[in-house]
């Protein structure tokens, strides 16, 4: 199989990830539950992973790295734990349902008001389009770093400057960029960074989290066992315990730690450049084919390693199925949990076929996909 669905999850991981998970399953007790050898054998890799993520994202401290099951859980915690009734939020049409649905829920339950920055014809959202929607009652800007449909990147450093100047909370969904594009919470003015462990970070599924900026207060989404202050009726105040009720996915986090160590050693820039090279090679190969429509701006702006396309008016589901069955190429058709972006691109009915690349893909993978698209377009 040629796996080009890395925006959904990376299939191939650095070899040390599986080794770390196996070791964890053979040695770990419960992190944060006691001080015997097994408990510490769990607590140490969990803490080491916090340190590695702090370094990767320039978070204020390892204790401000909170683990969750995925980015969706992190975004739910960030969004529901910071917005109050009547708050206004500026977000974008590029968002995934993991941002949209928590916001729609708060719109219905707390009267939170929403404004959406629309993309231009290329699918790009400019910082000025976001700034133009800010009102006196705006509390937060919530946006993705990159569209999971087209790979368009939002200039979060510029958005962060806007948020800082207006004293707004800035929440970033880094699901499509963590590990492949540089993220510096401090320099970019990010209040809460939400990430998943199983995509660009190349860790196990069931891992993710949020990094919390200095002075940002988040109400707990869940309460329960914390390993400390058992007689208190409320969740302990200190991060990360405040947001981590219940046993962590220690085995997965051990794997994520190994993955992040690998990324720090390899370098985010080296990983990102390789992914971008593969993505652009594929784009160059398919963009001139008659009958192929590619979505997004490939003029040179930095983007995530995603190419979304359609072939004439063929159903994207059918195209993806043929790619899988006849060519052994794994892609993702349909709506990609990005309803507003599909509305903006006019692809609500047809969907789109998404090709997404990872560090471990090869030039031969990209070329095989180009040839398959060419054959399908030729009919």
């Amino acid at each position, binding site marked *: 199989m040629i796996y080009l669905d890395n925006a959904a999850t990376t299939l191939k991981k650095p070899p040390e990830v599986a080794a770390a998970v196996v070791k964890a399953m053979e040695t770990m007790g419960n992190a944060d539950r006691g*001080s015997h050898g097994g408990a*510490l054998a769990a607590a*140490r890799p969990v803490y080491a992973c916090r340190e590695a993520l702090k370094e990767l994202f320039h978070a204020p401290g390892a*204790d401000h790295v909170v683990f969750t099951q995925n980015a969706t859980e992190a975004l739910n915690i960030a969004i529901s734990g910071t917005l109050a009734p009547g708050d206004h939020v500026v977000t974008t049409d590029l968002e995934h349902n993991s941002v949209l649905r928590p916001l729609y829920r708060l719109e219905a339950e707390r009267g939170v008001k929403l404004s959406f920055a629309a993309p231009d014809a290329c699918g790009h959202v400019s910082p000025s389009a976001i700034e133009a929607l800010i009102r006196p009652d705006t509390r937060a800007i919530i946006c993705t770093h990159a569209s999971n449909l087209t790979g368009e990147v939002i200039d979060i450093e510029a958005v962060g400057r806007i948020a800082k100047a207006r004293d707004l909370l800035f929440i970033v969904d880094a699901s499509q960029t963590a590990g492949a594009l540089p993220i510096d919470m401090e320099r970019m003015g990010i209040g809460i960074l939400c990430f998943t462990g199983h995509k660009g970070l190349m860790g196990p599924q069931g891992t993710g989290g949020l990094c919390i900026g200095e002075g940002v207060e988040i109400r707990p989404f869940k309460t329960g066992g914390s*390993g*400390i202050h058992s007689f208190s009726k409320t969740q*302990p*105040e*200190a991060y990360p315990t405040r947001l981590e009720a219940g046993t962590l996915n220690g085995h997965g986090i051990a794997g994520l730690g190994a993955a992040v160590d690998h990324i720090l050693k390899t370098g985010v820039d080296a990983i990102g450049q390789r992914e971008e090279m593969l993505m652009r090679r594929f784009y160059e190969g398919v963009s001139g084919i008659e009958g192929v429509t590619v979505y997004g701006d490939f003029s040179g702006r930095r983007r995530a390693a995603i190419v979304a396309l359609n072939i004439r008016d063929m159903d994207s589901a059918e195209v993806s199925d043929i790619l899988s069955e006849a060519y052994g190429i794994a892609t993702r058709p349909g709506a990609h949990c990005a309803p507003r972006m599909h509305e903006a691109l006019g692809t609500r009915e047809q969907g789109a076929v998404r090709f997404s690349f990872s560090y471990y893909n090869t030039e031969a993978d990209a070329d095989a996909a180009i040839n398959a698209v060419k054959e399908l377009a030729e009919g």
Partner: protein
Amino acid sequence: MRRKKPALVIAFASTAHAMRVEAFCAAAGLPGRLIPVPREITAGCGLAFKTLPEEEAHFRTVFAQEGIEYEGMYTVDLWG
């Protein structure tokens, strides 16, 4: 026969803070280890760092320099 001896016990607001101290002390060659929080400090559960009472001033200085967070330092008689 096992006897109680005074120990310096450092308590934390979060296990992550305790883990930071363990990693820091190991790297800096400072003595001590993680233990369950003794009941003299707080009822419940959690991790504390146990070390030598004569090191208290040194730990306070180093922690202040490094910005290491802790809830309190206590001298407690402990077994072992």
